[in-house]
């Protein structure tokens, strides 16, 4: 495998984690357009830990995930009052605030960025990405996931049949933030250079795009979406300048003809059934 493709593969693993972070939050009916910020928190914190304090990378990622998870839960608490688009706008604001914070955070380079991280292999990236994807797929079969779906479908009814919707929503935000932080930590150590612009609105949008395109009702949808976003441009080489427009068009088409995204429960069933039959 050439270094070029290895690097693309690593990128898609990092994007997969970002997409999963949006997916987990979206599963409770909350759209976050600010997950780039949690990614940034993970990237900066883990880089500081490995570069300045010589903490081993894996430990640094775990610490960053926990820290971002706590921040996510704290952010989610006031956000409980907001729904739908109002929540989405608040997360945009949060994302911009965090980006602005890192721009001013001179201790870690401010707008000049931060470097000095040890480069990691694509295998290490996918160890995390694959592991977390499997964990999410197991979670999708659990009681907790059913509760999240209930909150997603009808929050009022969920509360009235005995579910603690507050805990569910805050928990989803916390876990989503933690996953985004791991994505950020891996990004920082794969790229070996980070700057605040890496974690802005565009990044948050990229995560959402991967989820919506790949399939927003099943975990593996994020995998499809991430691979698509990273590798499709390779096939679009002849129209390289227009690849973003192609994604925009694809997004609109998917929303119009297949709102749940490319992959959904019934498609998975069809695919696995065929394989079993053959």
């Amino acid at each position, binding site marked *: 495998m050439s270094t070029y493709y290895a690097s693309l593969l690593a990128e898609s693993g990092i994007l997969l984690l970002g997409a999963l972070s949006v997916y987990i939050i979206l599963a409770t009916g909350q759209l976050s357009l600010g997950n780039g910020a949690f990614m940034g928190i993970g990237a900066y914190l883990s880089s500081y830990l490995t570069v300045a304090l010589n903490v081993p990378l894996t430990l640094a990622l775990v610490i960053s995930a926990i820290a971002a998870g706590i921040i996510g839960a704290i952010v989610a608490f006031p956000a409980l009052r907001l729904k739908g688009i109002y929540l989405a*706008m608040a997360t945009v604001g949060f994302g911009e605030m965090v980006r602005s914070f890192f721009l001013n955070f001179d201790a870690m380079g401010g707008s000049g960025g931060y470097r000095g991280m040890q480069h990691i292999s694509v295998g290490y990236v996918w160890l995390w990405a694959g592991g977390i994807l499997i964990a999410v797929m197991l979670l999708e079969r659990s009681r907790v996931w059913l509760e999240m779906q209930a909150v997603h479908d009808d929050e009022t009814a969920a509360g009235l049949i005995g579910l603690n919707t507050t805990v569910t929503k805050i928990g989803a935000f916390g876990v989503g933030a933690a996953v985004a932080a791991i994505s950020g930590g891996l990004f920082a150590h794969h790229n070996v250079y980070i700057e605040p612009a890496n974690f802005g609105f565009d990044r948050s949008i990229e995560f959402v795009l991967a989820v919506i395109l790949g399939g927003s009702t099943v975990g593996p949808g994020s995998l499809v979406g991430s691979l698509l976003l990273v590798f499709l441009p390779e096939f679009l080489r002849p129209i390289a300048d227009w690849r973003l427009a192609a994604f925009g068009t694809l997004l609109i088409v998917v929303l119009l003809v297949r709102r749940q995204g490319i992959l959904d429960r019934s498609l998975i069933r069809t695919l696995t059934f065929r394989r079993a039959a053959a």
Partner: protein
Amino acid sequence: MLIQQLVNGLTLGAVYTLLALSFSLVMGILGILNLAIAELFMIGGYLGFTLITAGFPLPVAVLGGMLGAAVIAIAIEKIGYQPLRDAPLVTPMLSTLGFSIILQNVATNIWGSDPAQLPDEYFGKQYAFGPVNIGEMQLIVLVATVVLVALVAYIVQKTPMGRALRAVAENREVARILGVSADRLTMLAFILSGSLAGVAGVLIALHYGTITPYLGVEIGLKAIAVMVIGGTRQIWGALVAGPLIGIAEVLTVAYGGSQVRDFVVYGFMILILLLRPQGLLGGARSDQGQRV
């Protein structure tokens, strides 16, 4: 010095007002966030730029930017909103995001990703009022904003179409009951909103004398904050919130350092969302949960 800053802040605020008004025309009436407005603004700016440098007079440039943006707004409404109007409100927002991505890409390919500069000879004139200098373009921006806001006010308050728009904004269910004409109202809201964004784009591009394809995101996100601060269901909130944020921004840059400014603006927006979701100017609470 302070007065000079206030005037500069007012100019920036005027543009925020126009763009926030553009967002709130769609948001207030249909409850959806049209993210492509940011890009309509940017495209409007480029169109105006192109027309001015081709030698056309300012009114033609403004009209060009306005028409161009309005036409794209119509396309967005037809393709990206109409088919999705019964979907959850987040879905049409994502489709406008699709348009936003496309428009930015188109602009990059047509005009390049480097900043385009307006030669100095355009609108370079300065008028001195005592210690305060006002550029020719600054004056135009301020006057145009007042005129446009008055025009929108007239349309929304006095015309039958405007009254229908307000009725729909009060109670979204009315839109469904109104049936066929609800489609026309939706279209009208998109066109009005797109035109405003286009004009705002021309004005700010000429005021700054420079433009990039990324202008939309930068100022558009800020305009969303302004809309929220003014009140999303409150078309007039933007009139107060725009200048307020413009001045606050210019002052934080002048006295606090340029980078804290975004932090302050978005922090303020989040506080408003949480504590006063109906916006600064009040009105009915907009976030009340559904009843059983």
